[in-house]
């Protein structure tokens, strides 16, 4: 490898995506490694600054202060890509597809027959105790029985080298726009890194998303006449860029709650030519804010009367209201059982071993092993409230113990995973940093997995938290379309 860029690259505990334990480059990364070797630090910095400038100019930023002169920052983009071999991907794709199918069946069941509860697969208090279990959804099934139309499952490669599911995101998973933008930027600033054998394209996503929205329209609407919209909380939401991006890429209106009205169980869009019916709402507004008549009465982000129209089958909501019960971190603990129960199959992608404090025998284990475990609140996202035992103070752990005793339903624990690292450029050298992978799964009439996903990387030294809100960055993710005979990527013309 380049003496300059990779000097002092020291493997951490856990596997590395690019290097074997003995320091040799994995086959899939050989071509990339050879090409990176031609870069010196200057070259790297030049490419990185071009990438940063492109992101800034495109306005792919989040606001640090919210006034007009607010400083805006880009989400850090890390130039060295993550590579997933075709063989690995086939396994991931099958595993995610299986998982999302089972979770949709689970959701339909907990809001209707509730067989999985009466058969003892998932305890009743685990289901009903989930804050996102939504009583307004009982005895109702959305079109095609799909609840989690868009799922984002966070994967990591564990110490044994296999991919495991860290958590599911079934409410309004975000980040897919960065998958597309990262690829655009990568092609622009580092075209010479791409292998000749091919990387699976990602720009199919908006088209697939739109087809899915049309799939799940209300029964009475003809496919050619579907009016679908993206519902955003507004321009001040941190994911607003993504909402606007997806609406634009699909060519459908981006609306705010105040742009819609519900009347006689039909939802309309306020347009300059009067009111026009809306059939499918891809909402990026949380359940609680969707309808002030059904949920939080103080919400100004939603549409009064939306739930009545939804239950009357006049409008479809994507993802379904109440889908969050299936990505609850305590329910997660039961997903392998859910897959076996609903599909009669063995899970292809394993869970991380998880202890739920709500189960008395597991609570005892958690309290005795706080020092070794990672403890997470059951219903938070963005990495908030996570306590990493080995890195926590005695004081913190004591307070955590009390919190668990006081509200066991709210806590789960997992062993600290030495998940894989990936070479990441930092100022003037390359160092290993922990990374996860969030693929996106769409379900309408069938299930489709976007080849790749968002690779998030913990930029801080020693950090295990990859969330952008906690100082994480992201990388382009390459799913190889062909692994070649040696499992790697061959290149007939390395000098192109």
């Amino acid at each position: 490898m380049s003496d300059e860029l990779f000097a002092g690259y020291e493997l951490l505990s856990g596997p590395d995506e690019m290097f074997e334990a003995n320091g040799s480059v994995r086959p899939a990364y050989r071509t990339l490694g050879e090409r990176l070797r031609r870069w010196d630090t200057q070259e790297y910095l030049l490419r990185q600054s071009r990438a940063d400038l492109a992101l800034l100019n495109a306005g792919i930023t989040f606001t640090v202060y919210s006034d007009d002169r607010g400083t805006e920052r880009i989400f850090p983009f890390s130039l060295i890509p993550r590579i997933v071999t075709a063989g690995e991907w086939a396994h991931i794709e099958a595993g995610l597809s299986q998982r999302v199918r089972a979770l949709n069946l689970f959701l339909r069941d907990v809001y209707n027959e509730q067989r999985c509860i009466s058969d003892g697969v998932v305890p009743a208090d685990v289901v009903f105790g989930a804050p996102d279990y939504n009583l307004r959804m009982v005895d109702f099934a959305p079109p095609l029985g799909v609840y989690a139309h868009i799922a984002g499952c966070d994967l990591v490669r564990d110490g044994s080298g296999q991919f495991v599911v860290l958590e599911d995101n079934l409410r309004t998973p975000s980040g897919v726009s960065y998958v597309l933008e990262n690829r655009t930027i990568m092609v622009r600033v580092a075209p010479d890194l791409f292998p000749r054998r091919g990387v699976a394209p990602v720009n199919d996503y908006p088209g697939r998303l739109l087809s899915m929205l049309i799939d799940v329209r209300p029964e009475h609407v003809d496919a050619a006449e579907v009016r679908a919209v993206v519902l955003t909380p507004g321009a001040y939401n941190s994911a607003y860029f993504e909402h606007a991006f997806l609406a634009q890429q699909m060519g459908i209106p981006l609306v705010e709650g105040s742009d819609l009205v519900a009347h006689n169980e039909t939802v309309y869009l306020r347009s300059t030519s009067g009111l026009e019916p809306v059939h499918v709402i891809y909402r990026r507004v949380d359940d609680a804010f969707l309808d002030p008549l059904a949920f939080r009465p103080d919400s100004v982000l939603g549409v009064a009367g939306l739930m009545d129209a939804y239950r009357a089958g006049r409008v479809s909501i994507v993802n379904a209201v109440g889908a969050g019960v299936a990505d609850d971190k305590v329910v997660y603990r039961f997903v392998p059982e859910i897959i076996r129960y609903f599909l009669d199959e063995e899970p292809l992608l394993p869970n991380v071993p998880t202890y739920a404090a709500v189960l008395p025998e597991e609570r005892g284990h958690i309290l005795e092993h706080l020092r070794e475990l990672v403890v997470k609140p059951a219903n938070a996202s963005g990495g908030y409230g996570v306590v990493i035992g080995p890195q926590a103070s005695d004081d913190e752990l004591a307070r955590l113990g009390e919190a668990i005793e006081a509200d066991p339903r709210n806590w789960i624990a997992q062993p600290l995973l030495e998940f894989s690292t990936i070479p990441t450029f930092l100022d003037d050298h390359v160092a290993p940093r922990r990374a996860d992978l969030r693929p996106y799964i769409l379900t309408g009439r069938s299930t489709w997995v976007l080849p790749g996903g968002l690779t998030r990387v913990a930029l801080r030294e020693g950090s295990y938290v990859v969330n952008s809100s906690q100082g994480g960055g992201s990388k382009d993710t390459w799913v190889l379309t062909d692994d070649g005979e040696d499992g790697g990527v061959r290149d007939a013309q390395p000098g192109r």
Partner: protein
Amino acid sequence: MLSRVAENLYWLGRYLERAENMARMAHVEYLTSVEGGGGPEQSGSTWDALIAASGARQAYFTAREAEPERAPADFLVLGWDNPNSIRSTLAQARNVARTVRGHVSREVWEELNQLHLYLSRRETLVESDLFDLCGEIKRRIETVFGLYDNTVLFDEGRDWFRCGLYLERADMTTRVLDTKYHLLLPEASEVGGPLDRFQWTAILKSVSAWEAFRKTDIAEISGRRVAGMLLFRPDFPRSILFCTRALLRHYRNATVDTPRAQCVHAEREIVLLEMDLAALTVEEVIAGGLHEFLDGLQTRFGAIDHATTEHIFRALPDGASAVPA
């Protein structure tokens, strides 16, 4: 088209045109003040007139009390404490563009975003930079307009954008003229003198009308002729008559599918304005007082804006009757 989107595209047109006009005026003001008034330091009073024309007189008094050394040009161009400064206006344009990101092309958005970033990096303004800075702002806004015309669908949204642009341009032209109306008062001194001609030339230049004027009118420059051109020339793209006609055309295109009961209000205002403009002569206007006439025009522009906002952008559906069958 979504009412909120229509309203925001209309405002995008207004803000961009406003910023471009102000950059134009500041550009010329700077040149004129250097040449005609013994350097930028002596030019306080004319900058005051520009600030007043931009509608920021009160904010300027407040700012000057806090910071007496502050250059008026800095307040007008970069002042964050001036909601009507060029930088604040463009920040609003960009915020509005963000909310209608799906209705403008990536090229338009990136150009506007880059202009915003370019201005965000500027610290206080040195007057000698004014020429280059205002020139750059003008050029970049014109680029946004060009990209808009060449990369965005010619649909209802573009018509609303153009409605905003032409209404704002007409309004700004009245404000430019109004800064010099006193030169056309019968009792004003030096009427027809060299200073007078110098001032009218500046006005023509600030609306990019100098060359057009020369091409179409070989006579001596006079207030009467300049006012005549800026008010009534049907083929000069910044005259009030031209803007009013363009506004009417785009408004009618934009409201083809709008219920008559909603779109008739503003259309009536525009049609009556166009009729009046077409019938008037510059002599009649000056006899009645240019300042009063310009004041009246600004009121009518306000009425057009109000009728469009109330009856189209913000119209509430009146119960079941608004619901299509």
